[in-house]
């Protein structure tokens, strides 16, 4: 018995909080569980990309997305890049049990807010299923130039100005990433009224560097 690794040591090594997170990642009990832990993990992983911003400041969209997908895989998500979901979606994240999923559309911000809006339309009209346990998505906005919060605010303004294109769209602040993310929910055209709205988390990733002092 003494040479065995005990459950109490296992719990102690992970710590109660990390162990609970690990259990949620490996075996989420509900779609909300999956969404919650995925967003917590995304926050940390996005933070890691941002801390390595110098490596991504001129990177192509796919290169940044691939780095994020690898990090998600290392946290036990069934994540992939360019999976066929009625077209090649940038990021697909499924739970290990494959019951729950989230799709992500990645766009570099330097092509402007209209380009980002096209990405949101693409995500919610072409790729999103919108069926139960598959009705959440993410817009990953890679900000390599300019001010991230202002870039996101401009995009949000354009989205609000185009609200008529998205049935019953609602906007909500994102407490996890104040000023650098917001959530929307709207009725998907392919699903219609009566089912839960499609929720999208719009996240600005700060992959820029301030100009050096001349």
């Amino acid at each position, binding site marked *: *018995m003494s*040479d*065995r*690794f*005990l*459950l*109490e*040591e*296992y*719990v*102690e*090594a*992970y*710590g109660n909080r*990390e162990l609970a997170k*690990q259990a949620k990642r*490996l*075996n989420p009990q509900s779609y909300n569980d999956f969404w919650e832990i995925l967003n917590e993990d995304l926050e940390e992983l996005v933070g*890691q990309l941002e801390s390595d911003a110098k490596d991504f400041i001129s990177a192509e969209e796919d290169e940044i997305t691939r*780095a994020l997908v*690898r*990090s998600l*895989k*290392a946290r*036990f998500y*069934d994540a992939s890049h360019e999976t066929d979901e009625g077209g090649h979606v940038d990021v697909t994240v499924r739970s*290990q049990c494959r019951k729950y999923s989230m799709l992500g559309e990645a766009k570099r911000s330097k092509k402007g807010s209209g380009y980002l809006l096209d990405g949101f339309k693409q995500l919610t009209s072409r790729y999103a299923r919108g069926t139960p346990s598959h009705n959440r998505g993410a817009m990953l906005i890679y900000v390599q130039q300019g001010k991230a919060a202002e870039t996101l605010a401009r995009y949000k303004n354009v989205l609000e100005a185009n609200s008529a294109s998205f049935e019953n769209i609602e906007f909500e602040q994102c407490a996890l990433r104040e000023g650098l993310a917001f959530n929307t929910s709207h009725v998907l055209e392919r699903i219609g009224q009566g089912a839960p709205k499609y929720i999208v988390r719009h996240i600005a990733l700060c992959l820029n560097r301030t100009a050096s002092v001349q």
Partner: protein
Amino acid sequence: MLSNLILARIREVYPAFEREGVAQVCDWIIGRIGENESLGLLDNGIVFSPSEIIQAIGWSEDKSKTQDVLRGLDFLSFGPVQLLKREFEFWPLDDEDARPVAISLDELAEAAEKGGLVCPRTNQFIENFKAQVSVAYYTDSATLRKAEEMADER
């Protein structure tokens, strides 16, 4: 030998490991599986204990190193290619010669919720069950074949 496909799948994720230790643990485990496989010893299976890995890699048993070992073992059990299986065993204290009893994850979850485990042998309610349940990871030929199939599918 372990197929290149499995190794490729694992290495695909390596650059993203947040802690170098996890990659080191995975390397060590894969190396040991490869040695056993080349010696034809895999049919009997190999058990990996976190304590054994800590010693083999020459680490001290501090909390962060132990966590790296567990993350590595979990990664190979639940990650993109599942080379290992995780097992929990209950060890009776009243009879040292008695064999341990396998405990399912559901039973453990129920025990955590109720604050105690019902001993499968005696039906006795044990509050301090975490000191009597061991955690081990193992692999054998059948598990590796499944992992290869999974890697092929993906």
